[in-house]
């Protein structure tokens, strides 16, 4: 019963967050200068044309009226029609979401693997040159933002040593059997490793660019908390039992030291998803972020709203998952 109450409470706070995000984005994009009608009509269009189109999209009504129309639509599952693409918003957004999710998850995996390995190496060889090297690498990784890493990677592995693809999600020449938009997962499920490999070659650089700063943060924090944990009494006690340094780090210190890092990964992962907007643009990757930029350029108000709502939902789900994992790993919170 307690668990059920906790879940219901969580769902309630999640919906408040979503409604908040919807209200803010709805009003802000209508207050900032620029309007979609101006983007659609050629220069010198007559006042009459402008008025007719404005009325057609309901933009002549007051903002509150517009909000009410949009909100009632949303509760019926209708997020409006994209002005620039002239298609319903939700299918458009959901069609692009899997590409972004796959990119973000791939980036997260890379960041956790690199960051975790660096932290463990740094702790295993603490107070030696190896740890200094890890610190330097962390500093470099942190001080260069993801979009700059993207440019560096494009120059290195796209131009000077062209081993990876720099543009798109998959080679256009390939024949695609996919029925879902989760290409990477579906290629594995269909055992089409040729397609899977092509997808990875496209995803690797944008994912790595997103992953490097996160890897540096993970490495830094995890190494720090591991080092602090290594001084604690229960770690010392396990040494006297005859365990090796590796065992002491991995099975005594790590499960406790990983907790603060886990919270951080949750927060940083939402930043990483924010980062996909620019990174997808740089690599012409057909994801939600790329679509968001087009939507903003075209002042495609319904599409922007739809994208923001989906991003907001994604962030609240990530927070929920992080909290649940945290409770699962920390016995002191399990009954709280």
């Amino acid at each position, binding site marked *: 019963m307690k668990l059920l109450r906790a879940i219901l409470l969580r769902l309630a706070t999640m919906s408040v967050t979503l409604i908040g995000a919807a209200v803010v984005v709805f009003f802000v994009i209508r207050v900032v200068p620029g309007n979609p009608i101006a983007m659609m009509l050629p220069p010198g269009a007559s006042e009459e044309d402008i008025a007719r189109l404005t009325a057609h999209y309901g933009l002549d009504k007051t903002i509150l009226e517009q909000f009410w129309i949009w909100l009632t639509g949303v509760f019926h599952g209708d997020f409006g029609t994209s002005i620039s693409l002239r298609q319903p918003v939700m299918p458009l957004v959901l069609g692009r979401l899997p590409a972004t999710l796959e990119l973000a998850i791939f980036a997260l995996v890379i960041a956790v693997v690199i960051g975790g390995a660096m932290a463990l190496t740094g702790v295993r060889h603490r*107070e030696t040159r190896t740890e200094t090297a890890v610190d330097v690498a962390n500093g470099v990784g942190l001080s260069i933002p993801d979009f700059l890493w993207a440019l560096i990677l494009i120059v290195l592995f796209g131009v000077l040593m062209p081993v990876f693809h720099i543009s798109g999600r998959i080679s256009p020449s390939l024949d695609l059997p996919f029925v879902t938009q989760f290409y990477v997962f579906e290629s594995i499920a269909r055992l089409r490793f040729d397609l899977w490999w092509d997808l990875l070659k496209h995803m690797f650089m944008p994912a790595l660019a997103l992953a490097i700063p996160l890897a540096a943060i993970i490495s830094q924090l995890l190494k720090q908390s591991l080092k602090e944990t290594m001084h604690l009494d229960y770690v010392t*006690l396990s*040494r*006297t039992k*005859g*365990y*090796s340094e590796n065992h002491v780090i991995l099975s005594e210190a790590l499960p406790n030291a990983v907790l603060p890092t886990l919270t951080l990964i949750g927060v940083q992962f939402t930043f990483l998803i924010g980062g996909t907007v620019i990174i997808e643009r740089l690599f012409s990757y057909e994801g939600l972020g790329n679509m968001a930029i087009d939507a903003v350029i075209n002042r495609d108000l319904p599409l922007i709203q739809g994208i923001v709502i989906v991003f907001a939902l994604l962030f609240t789900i990530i927070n929920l998952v992080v909290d649940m994992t945290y409770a699962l790993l920390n016995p002191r919170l399990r009954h709280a």
Partner: protein
Amino acid sequence: MSAFLTVNNLSAALHGYDQRVLRSVSFSIDTGEVLGLVGESGAGKSMIGKAVLGILPSAIEIIEGEILLDGQDLQKMKPADRRRLIGATAALIPQDPLTALNPSRRIEPQITNRLVDILGWGKTDARVRALELLNEVHIDNPERVMGSYPHELSGGMRQRVLIASAFAANPKLVIADEPTTALDVTVQKQILRLIRELQERHSTAMVFVTHDLGVVSKVCQRLSVLYGGKIVENSSVPDFFTGPKHAYSRALLAATPKYTDPDASLLPVDEAVIEAVAAEVLASDKEWRHGG
């Protein structure tokens, strides 16, 4: 009986410094014997225990001397062999039961892990042994405690668990590092009795580190008084309490509150005595430098 632990002329120093933190310490303990290491904070009493168990902080290194555990010179062994020997024959009862148990693991594996991972016991045997040990430390419902997490147990319970864990592999040597300091007085007494009981039953050699001479008189047969990392007096417990030889020992004894005479005022250790013993320690440094 032969000595199970012999420490010969052991000196340790901060890495890269000439200043010693342990000064030519020598002592030995037979099977079944309890040696008290007493001294004020910073006298190096815990450090001796850490040196024996191979858990000195990385900033401190042994610069001289030998530690013979079961006849084997620890300094000359390969690190992996040394770890195994210590894990199989010696154990630590730590000072603070609140921090000495891993908060994210249940009690059972924290008692049995040495048996299973280091000594190669089967899981079931180790579990039976753990239950038996929890009975030995007078825990009423061992099944429930084995499945608990440390935060669900009181300080006294946790110290009992740690004692059970220390005696799990029938160690020949137990180092008790101020095992009652972090506990309140009523629990202290029970825990002391418990440690003594297990030590006698298993005829374990024990090093009992404490600053409480009252505890020494109850638990130990012999004691060594430390000042500045140097042993200033070795004595049997009866001899010490009837007539300590060193001036510092006499001052320490005089500064101990007496339950028989609660109205007597507490004497701080005389400054002149401190100066004298400090001078003695420094003089031994000079001698050591010329000799070495």
